[in-house]
């Protein structure tokens, strides 16, 4: 049986994390202010939310959890579907593929930039709720965990879709939107899951947004469909599935 060198493993891990962080920083510098990312990550969820919130008679403050959820969904999954096709086109993506790092670190580093972008953007509706509508936060730690996990989950989803071997941003975005748009209707963001038809309720279980939104609702209202622990475990499972799938797809499509 081969022996494991703990020092070597720790050094390897440190190198991989440092390279992943370098990839994330590079994306932050290059893509955070790109117009299509601003539109897709900030304006799109905002207008989408306004379109649905306008017809509701609920006080604006009660809509904040839903706004946070869809902001996390759209902003986290917007960076990589833009950056990776662009980098394929200008051949800089080959640099990452041929660097002495594992594909896991590449996928993790790419997801990290979407994750941090999304956390930053989601602070806007959060601040809006606190400062303008005095929306109370019942459980701040749960809100923080919910935002972190939901954001990372959708950042990984964006990285997964960006694995599709195209140099065209529009192609990846179109595919991603066929998943993102239905998610906001089946995950209890606008319509509570308990009010949905049976089939809708069953489909909701397969949406990671269901669990992210459920935790955010819990953080604001103290009420939720699942326990926060269940939400955490299920979000972690989705993250793991997306990471593994992304890793496999990048390997497959680079052949």
């Amino acid at each position, binding site marked *: 049986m081969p022996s494991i060198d703990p020092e070597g493993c720790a050094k390897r891990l440190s*190198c991989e994390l*440092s*390279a992943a962080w*370098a*990839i994330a920083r*590079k994306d932050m*510098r*290059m893509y955070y202010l790109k117009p299509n990312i601003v539109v897709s990550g900030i304006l799109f969820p905002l207008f989408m939310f306004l379109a649905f919130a306008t017809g509701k008679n609920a006080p604006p403050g009660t809509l904040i959890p839903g706004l946070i959820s869809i902001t996390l969904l759209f902003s986290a999954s917007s960076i990589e579907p833009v950056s990776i096709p662009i980098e394929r086109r*200008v*051949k*800089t993506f*080959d*640099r*990452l*593929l*041929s*660097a*002495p*790092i*594992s594909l896991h670190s590449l996928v993790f580093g790419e997801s990290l930039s979407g994750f941090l972008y999304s956390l930053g953007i989601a602070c806007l509706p959060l601040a809006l709720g606190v400062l303008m509508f005095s929306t109370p936060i019942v459980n701040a730690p749960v809100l923080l965990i919910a935002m972190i996990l939901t954001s990372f989950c959708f950042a990984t989803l964006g990285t997964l879709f960006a694995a599709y071997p195209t140099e065209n941003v529009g192609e990846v975005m179109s595919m991603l939107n066929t998943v993102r748009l239905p998610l906001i209707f089946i995950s209890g963001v606008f319509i509570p899951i308990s009010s949905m038809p049976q089939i809708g309720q069953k489909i909701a279980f397969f949406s990671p947004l269901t669990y992210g939104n459920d935790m955010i609702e819990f953080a604001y209202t103290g009420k939720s469909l699942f326990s926060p622990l269940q939400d955490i475990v299920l979000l972690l499972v989705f993250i793991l599935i997306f990471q593994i799938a992304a890793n496999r797809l990048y390997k497959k499509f*680079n*052949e």
Partner: protein
Amino acid sequence: MEYMEAIEVSHLIKKFGPLTALNDITFSVGEGETFGFLGPNGAGKTTTIRILTGISSPTSGTATIFGHDIEHDTIAARQSMGIVSENSNVYDDLTAWQNMIFSAQLYHVARKEREKKTNELLTIFGLHERRNDKAHGFSKGMKRRLTLAMGLVNSPRLLFLDEPTSGLDVQSNLIIRDVVTDLVSKGVTVFLTTHNIEEANLMCDRVAIINKGNIAAIDAPERLKKTIQSVQSIEFSFNNNSADQLDELRRLPLVNDAQKAGDKFKLYTQDPSEVIDAVMVYAHTHDLKVISITTLGPSLEDVFIRLTGLQRVGGTVHAID
């Protein structure tokens, strides 16, 4: 210290569905060697490089870099290599400095070393004064120099150079050639792919010619040239050169083909001395003076054309398959 080949490729096969891109190729590159990898477009050069750099996996066969299997020990194998791709793949929205530092981070170069190395390489490549400028404002030559500098930031033992000087200005060309010559003198192994056969002839210890996924020949340039001694030529210039003379020269006895390039004619033959006599007679009868004449052995380009199944027709080269 035990000698180790820089690259060892053994029975490498790569298939894309029904297409065989690499058909059982085997070769090795010694440490410190400058190895040219030549072939027409679609011959399998890029596929080979993608496998050697661990981006793509072979269908079967193995490739090792300094003893590390590229498929199973990918990270260790990549750590010792620098890759300079044909496309100057720098990040346009980052400055030259940021590009270098990012590359160093990907190759796990320690913080102090990365800044020192970045300063040193940007100076060598004449980019230090522009280090804080974004690369999108750089000329093609500057981007190429930056690409090469990024490929050297981890002090690689093996450098993959893809078309290093293609379409560059004289200054960039000279800087890059000087740097590569210096690297070779320091024992760095260079794996060079180029369409510039004269460049390969001048720079490489050995070249491999790949065609349709097979290695057609592999040897030192001079030894390869000796294999086709039948393709010799004479090059000459008259005091009054005209394109109309080309057809008449092509019809001279023992001339296999004729080309006109600039103010010179080049006649291909198996018997240069007989053709020189014929050219002198031609000059005399047309009241021309021969102002220069040279006999030439086969060039590496001739070897390449012969082995890849291409054919000279007039001044151009055509596929004959």
